[in-house]
């Protein structure tokens, strides 16, 4: 009898039947939990991080000066001597230009979307929550912008503002605000009609606290997911503007601009010419697939 230690027989107590009580779960924690088991999204997330890091560290990574031309080494093929990815029509190192160009292209992809999400999202939430006349004024204004195809609108605004990084960014932000606003408005008016908003009011919450603790967080996931798909569109639009000469001006490296200036050489060095296009392609695919995975991970079953 004595060799049985006390407590060897497990006695079920109410406190031990639950899951480990240490972790406090949050919404974002559960999103990450679902994301962890999605290899495709994780892979492309890594790709994005790699691209972003290479853009950030371009000054240290780039083997040569991206703007230094060499008449003797124009349009060299991939792997020619010290030029790992060949040279462009002015004999500038493609690898260095791609790394440096990524800085501008990524900035053009991310910053306008960020600004547009903040501005458009705020307008959309206000329009959706208050409804009525406020909604009408905001949404009809957005409809005016919607009436133009986005590329045409971007070209029109950029054309009237002139070139340059700042103007290009402004143009893209203006173009991206209406669709984000529309998505935020739809999501908000849906959330607003759900019972938990009434339930929060019935338990004494003020309008402001309902807006921030209940409406905003429920609107955030559809808006964030939609915005992340816009990053690739923004990169492509920015490249398009640069291609048309409405964005950054040479000799600054930018993927769209590089594509534009190299297109005359497509029969001479097709592979080198395609490089900026491939960079745009990979970046936009990565952003699209990550946003797709994000959408699935953020989708809470109600």
């Amino acid at each position, binding site marked *: 009898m004595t060799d049985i230690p006390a407590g060897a027989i497990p006695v079920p107590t*109410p*406190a031990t*039947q*639950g*899951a480990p*009580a240490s*972790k*406090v*779960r949050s*919404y974002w924690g*559960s999103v990450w939990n679902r994301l962890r088991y999605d290899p495709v999204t994780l892979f492309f997330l890594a790709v994005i991080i790699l691209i972003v890091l290479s853009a950030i560290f371009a000054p240290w990574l780039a083997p040569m000066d991206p703007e230094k031309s060499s008449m003797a080494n124009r349009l060299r093929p991939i792997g020619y001597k010290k030029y790992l990815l060949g040279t462009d029509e002015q004999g500038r190192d493609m690898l260095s230009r791609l790394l440096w160009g990524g800085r501008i292209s990524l900035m053009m992809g991310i910053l306008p979307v960020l600004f547009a999400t903040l501005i458009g999202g705020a307008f959309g939430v206000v329009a959706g929550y208050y409804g*009525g006349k406020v909604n009408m004024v905001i949404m009809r204004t957005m409809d005016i912008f919607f009436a133009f195809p986005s590329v045409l609108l971007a070209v029109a605004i950029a054309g009237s503002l002139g070139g340059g990084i700042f103007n290009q960014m402004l143009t893209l932000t203006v173009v991206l605000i209406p669709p984000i606003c529309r998505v935020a408005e739809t999501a908000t008016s849906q959330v607003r009609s*759900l*019972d*938990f908003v*009434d*339930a*929060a*009011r*019935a*338990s*004494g*919450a*003020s309008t402001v*606290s309902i807006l921030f*603790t*209940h409406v905003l*967080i*429920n609107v955030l996931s559809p808006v964030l997911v939609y915005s992340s798909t816009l990053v690739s569109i923004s990169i492509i639009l920015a490249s398009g503007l640069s291609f048309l000469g409405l964005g950054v001006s040479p000799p600054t490296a930018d993927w769209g601009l590089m594509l534009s200036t190299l297109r005359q050489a497509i029969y001479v060095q097709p592979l080198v010419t395609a490089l900026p296009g491939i960079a745009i392609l990979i970046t936009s695919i990565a952003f699209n697939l990550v946003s797709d995975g994000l959408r699935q991970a953020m989708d*809470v*079953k*109600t």
Partner: protein
Amino acid sequence: MNEMRSPDTLASEPHGATVEPYVRVKDLTVRFVSREATVKAVNGVSFDLDKGQVLCVIGESGSGKSVMMRSLLRLHPKKRTVIEGSMRVGADEITSVSDKKMSELRGSTISMIFQEPMTALDPLYTIGDQIAETVMRHEKIDRDAAWKRALELLELVRVPSPERRLKAFPHELSGGLRQRAMIAVALSCRPSILLADEPTTALDASVQIQVLVLLRKLQREMGMSMIFVTHDLGVAAQIADKVAVMYAGRIIEYGEARDVLMHPQHPYTKAMLSSTVKDQDKGKPLEAIAGTPPDLRALPDGCSFAPRCKYAGPDCKVAMPDPLIDGRGHMVRCSKVRVMGGLLMFDEGMARPETALEPA
């Protein structure tokens, strides 16, 4: 008979109040105004409710039950809603208190359980967060204390393994558990009136009765008043002290649960009771009430039930009958009912002499 029908004395005191009741709703009308039409959702509802009593409001969809409840919390959009009459809860007049005071009353004095536990809980917060949020809003306590309170509340509403459920998201719980969590949120600040808007309708039958028994038990233990909206007469019989039957935004019959459900006087209440499944013969079809409820944008003159009533005579279409009350506080609004020996009596052949129309 004329004295008995005098509206002034009867309408104001539906069941001969002796002490001031805790809740007194008087001549409440709620209209939703839009550019196209005005919807008269509630048309002059009066009732009293004492502390610790359960009032069941019965009626079919669109009879104004939920609208009436939501106006007790002033949940309707201000701009498009016109509320008239008076709703007094304790010492506060709901129709005229400031917005700030209303926010304080919500949750702490008056609390509400919603019909759909799926949508009444925010999908992005854990159950514990949602209970703690309400507790912290009304009482100056820190997060840990609020979570402790949330745990006690989940135990109170008999949620199994409450520690784990506190950290669960709404979609991880079954319908019954979710409704219990909803009840926990509603009870978190010890309200003195609980409004329950069909809280068992979305649940399956076996869970329904559990939730019902739980609500009744909690209501008794906490001494709460409760207004319980349902269209399930069986539920009403289980839980109610008083029953009010609503039709087209009016209370057409009111009284002790036993009186209304066992001896219904209004043809609508009678028809509703005979259209439920009880112990009829198997082969016998259920009696449904013919027709549809009236359009609340254009109510008919006279008794709103007259178009569907098989006893309706020409006098029914003239004016809405005034409330008629017997000695037991049983109230009915029907021109075919009179008081005989202190009790209400339905008389098919009766016509009100003062309004009877002579055949031309």
